[in-house]
């Protein structure tokens, strides 16, 4: 264990960010050909590819619901996505994150428009450096938009951590592992609705309240970037004069 400090005395983190500063985030939409909708995100060093298939006939059929579409998420990490080699077999963590992501996106989608069908969200983590679930949720909501699936709002997501006694926005891998706590949130900004809130570690009630404020601010920043990505993608497409 190194004695390197994660936050310097003048409040700068070890990657040069301020306490409430996000990493560099770049969204791209419509990157895959064989899916109905897709998105790619580079969130600092975290890189994730998301493909959406559907709404389509539900397979297996007995899982289809008579009154709404079934949403399924498949979160998977590539073997090379982490520093140590990750076994390609599905892990407990991947299964859990799939469930968490599915439930974070579910409230945003008008599933009742497509009874008996399924909407599958495939999430491939190519490189992981913390906040993969947040990046995955944010990118997946863009892929759903690209697939033309009706939604109440975009879902933006970000995490707040407690590191060396201070609250930091957008937790990277090192801060997550060595910090005291980590709290990811997914949020629908124009509905002011939280669709995911998790926490591990320990914080005080006051810190929790301050975290929520910080999380909302972070989600709004992500939301702005999501909107910009959609506008950039569809504007370019509409003025496109080249043959497909």
């Amino acid at each position, binding site marked *: 264990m190194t004695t390197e400090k994660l936050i310097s005395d003048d409040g700068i983190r070890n990657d040069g960010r301020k306490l409430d500063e996000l990493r560099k985030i770049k969204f791209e939409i419509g990157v895959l050909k064989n899916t*109905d*909708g897709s998105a790619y995100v580079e969130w600092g060093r975290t890189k994730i590819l998301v493909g959406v298939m*559907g*709404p*389509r*006939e539900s397979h297996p059929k007995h899982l289809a619901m*008579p009154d709404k579409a079934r949403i399924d998420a498949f979160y998977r990490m590539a073997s090379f996505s982490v520093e140590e080699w990750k076994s390609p077999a599905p892990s407990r963590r991947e299964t859990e994150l799939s469930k968490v992501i599915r439930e974070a996106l579910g409230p*945003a989608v*008008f599933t009742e428009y*497509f*009874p*008996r*069908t399924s909407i599958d969200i495939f999430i491939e983590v190519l490189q992981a450096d913390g906040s993969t679930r947040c990046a995955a949720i944010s990118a997946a909501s863009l892929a759903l*938009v*690209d*697939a*033309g*699936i*009706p*939604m*109440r*709002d*975009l879902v933006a997501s970000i995490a707040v951590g407690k590191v060396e006694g201070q609250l930091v926005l957008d937790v990277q891998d090192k801060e997550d592992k060595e910090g005291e706590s980590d709290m990811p949130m997914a949020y*629908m*900004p*124009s*509905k002011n609705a939280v669709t995911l809130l998790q926490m591990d570690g320990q914080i005080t009630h006051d810190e929790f309240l301050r975290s929520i404020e910080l999380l909302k601010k972070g989600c709004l920043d992500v939301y702005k970037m*999501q*909107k910009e990505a*959609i*506008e950039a993608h*569809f*504007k370019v*497409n*509409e*003025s*496109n*004069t*080249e*043959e*497909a």
Partner: protein
Amino acid sequence: MNFEQRQLVVPGTLLAEGKYEAGFNVYRDADKYFASIVGLADLRNDLVSVIPLRGCYLPQPGDIVIGKVIECIPTAWMLDIRSPYQGVLFASEFLSKPLNPMREEARKYLDVGEMVIASVIAFDRTRNPSLSCRDHNLGKIQRGTVIDVDATRVPRIIGKKGSMIGMLKKESNTQIMVGQNGRVWISGKTRDEEAYVAAAVRKIADEAHTSGLTDRIREYLVSNRR
């Protein structure tokens, strides 16, 4: 009203507040109206709607669709109509005589992979859409080319009162049938002829929301014609 006509909106964009009506791809929450899909916002006589840029095809009774046979069952065929729901074409809606499954196979008339032009006779999302070929110009496709475009671009390929498709037919001398599900059938004298009309249709789909499109497509057809 919270937007400019034909402004690009994303799901969750607040479109209007107060006395309006929710049209396509718009949902209401108390007295607020939000977009539910990515598209171009549109207001007409208090009706707020979003013209979709992406979306899947949902069958409506009366629609003409082009389907591909994916399964033959004793007295019906299952058709892929590029929708979340597969179409069902009963033998009685396709053949002029009854089909006895004990004596003959449905596959004899229509096999997997073949394309059919059909109309939707009923659909309510609780059952798969049922299709029919009992009308003029409907039935199995025997010749020509079928291409896929985004279903949201179909209105543009047809044009206002059929202006675009009328021009396409006139300038190219081919037969064209546009399925509401985003499949277009083109039949001409030669493959080359079909190919350049197909390219023109793809061009329409790609540039659907730009102005002066009909004239540009006409120029394109004229310059590619020999």
